[in-house]
């Protein structure tokens, strides 16, 4: 029997960590992910986990220790947010290129400045090209489910890449709501033991981790790493279908909500999707053909699949909780626009930045976006209309 509980996103992910009970967790606290190492430390102190917790002096050290532990052959996890992820930057690339399937619980938070502790996706979006798989959650349930699926994806022989399980800071991490948990034994059986093929402490196999590569080898290493990310797409789907058999909950690369016959669509990531769904249900009652495309997996980027799901839409708003200062919209808008172009989509596209520094995103704003899309689809973008714009900005 599934366990009905109420938990914050941080409690839910910490509970998944307890159930998985990995070998090593190096971590350094930072708001709003501080509770994750805190809860894990409590579980260890109470004898409910036997993970080796390594308190380190910085996030750079946290990721370095995670790399060392994982390379040695230990299943490893860590957690961070915002500036903490930024300080890991150099080592994120080392983890990915050395093909170390570390799981990182990321609680999304803005980067400075202004100094701000609230939700934004700028931390993980900045790391989008570091070679990590990135999976995002709409709510605490998804954050929990995604973390349980993390190691089976990351450690798959066709993949062997680190994985970032992201949830919206405060909105999800500190919001308590209903959740359905799996029993410990189901989680343990699903995740399984970690048996890497190659690892540093393997007595009968000498190996080096992170050596120098001259130019006649380096490019092949990068290409192999890129192939792992390509392979991850199918592995994510396969793991999701097995997960469904134990949880009853379905996951894919994305979720299409009332999208099949939709003329107008919002594409978004994270907690904004729940709010958008409420707006869609209200507008559907009024006869408006509106839908949502929720991007769950951002790395690997399922460009073809997303474009295919949007093929019947006349106008699409792509929402980024992140300003990439490209003067051309956020990262999701940039990548999805490219995919739509490749798919020869004729849809009008609005690139919208929202929710920066924890600015609230409301049902009313989602309804406004749909109204704008309808207007653009009927009358065209217009010479003065900005296809890259902000919503929720104080005038």
């Amino acid at each position, binding site marked *: 029997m599934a366990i009905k509980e*109420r938990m914050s996103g941080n409690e839910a992910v910490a509970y998944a960590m307890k159930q998985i009970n990995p070998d090593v967790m190096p971590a350094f606290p930072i708001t709003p992910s501080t509770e994750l190492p805190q809860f894990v430390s409590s579980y260890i102190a109470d004898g409910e986990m036997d993970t080796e917790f390594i308190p380190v002096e910085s996030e750079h050290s946290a990721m370095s220790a995670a790399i060392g532990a994982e390379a040695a052959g230990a299943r490893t996890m860590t957690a961070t947010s915002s500036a903490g992820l930024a300080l890991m930057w150099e080592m994120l690339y080392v983890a990915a290129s050395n093909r170390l399937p570390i799981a990182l619980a990321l609680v999304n938070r803005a980067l400075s400045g202004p100094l701000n*502790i*609230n939700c934004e996706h700028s931390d993980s979006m900045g790391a989008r090209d570091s070679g990590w798989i990135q999976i995002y959650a709409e*709510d605490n349930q998804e954050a929990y489910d995604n973390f349980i699926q993390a190691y089976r994806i990351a450690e798959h022989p066709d993949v062997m890449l680190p994985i970032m399980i992201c949830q*919206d800071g*405060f*909105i*999800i991490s*500190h*919001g*308590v*709501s*209903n959740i359905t948990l799996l029993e410990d034994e189901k989680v343990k059986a699903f995740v399984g033991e970690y048996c890497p093929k190659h690892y540093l402490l393997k007595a009968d196999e000498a190996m080096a981790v992170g050596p120098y590569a001259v130019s006649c080898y380096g490019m092949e290493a990068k290409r192999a790493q890129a192939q792992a990310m390509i392979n991850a797409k199918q592995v994510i789907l396969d793991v999701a279908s097995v997960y469904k058999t134990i949880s009853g909950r379905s996951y894919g690369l994305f979720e299409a909500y009332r999208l099949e016959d939709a003329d107008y669509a919002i594409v978004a990531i994270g*907690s*904004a999707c*729940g*709010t958008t*769904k*409420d707006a869609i249900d209200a507008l559907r009652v009024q006869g408006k053909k509106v839908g949502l495309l929720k991007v769950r997996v951002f790395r690997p980027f399922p460009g073809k699949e997303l474009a295919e799901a949007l093929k019947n839409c006349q106008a699409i708003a792509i929402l980024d909780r992140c300003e990439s200062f490209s003067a051309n919209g956020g990262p999701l808008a940039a990548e999805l626009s490219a995919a739509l172009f490749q798919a020869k989509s004729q849809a009008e596209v609005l690139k919208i930045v929202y929710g920066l520094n*924890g600015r*609230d*995103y*409301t*049902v009313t704003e989602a309804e406004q976006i749909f109204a704008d899309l309808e207007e653009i689809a009927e009358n065209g973008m217009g010479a003065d209309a900005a296809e890259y714009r902000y919503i929720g900005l104080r005038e």
Partner: protein
Amino acid sequence: MGQLTEIRWHGRGGQGAKTAALLLADVAFSIGKYVQGFPEYGPERMGAPITAYDRISDVSIRVHSNIYEPDFVVVVDDTLLHDVDVTSGLKEEGAILINTEKEKEEILPLLKDYQGAVYTINAKKVCMETMGKYFPNMPMLAAVVKISGVMEQEVFRKEMEASLQHKFEKKPEVFAGNMQALLQAWEEVTFIGSAANRQMSRIYAAQASGLGA
């Protein structure tokens, strides 16, 4: 109770408004409701105004925004009435609950044009008489459960008894004080007015300030 009840809490950092909001979500969850309890963080410091929210529903909740048109508002610190527009968006058919030692003649004029029901509770008095320490969480929780009708008194008492017994397993004396605070607050929460007698209090306020009626 309707399908969805939305509650907004106003307090100051360190007073436990967030904890109270989470306790309310907890107790509503325990009777099978779908819940959300979440804080809105401003500057993280003692004494700064903070807001927390509850959604309580018979169906699952997907929206993740703050609450702008609450059914009920709870004010944990009456000094906020001067600084924060606590009745902003509050539904007229809802109610506001204020923790205060002040008389209604002082409180009602501070609520501007709000036409709905106003309740007060003297949480400090309840706390000092039952626990000997001022932690407004328990009295505010009981009072808001009563005025919102989220659950019956007997159900609330039973659920809280079970929850507090577990929480204070090793401190039975704390358990008793907390339970007493809940029960006393349930009795002492007072309806002090609505649109009709607001006029009265405006006249009183005008007279008091020497401006005439």
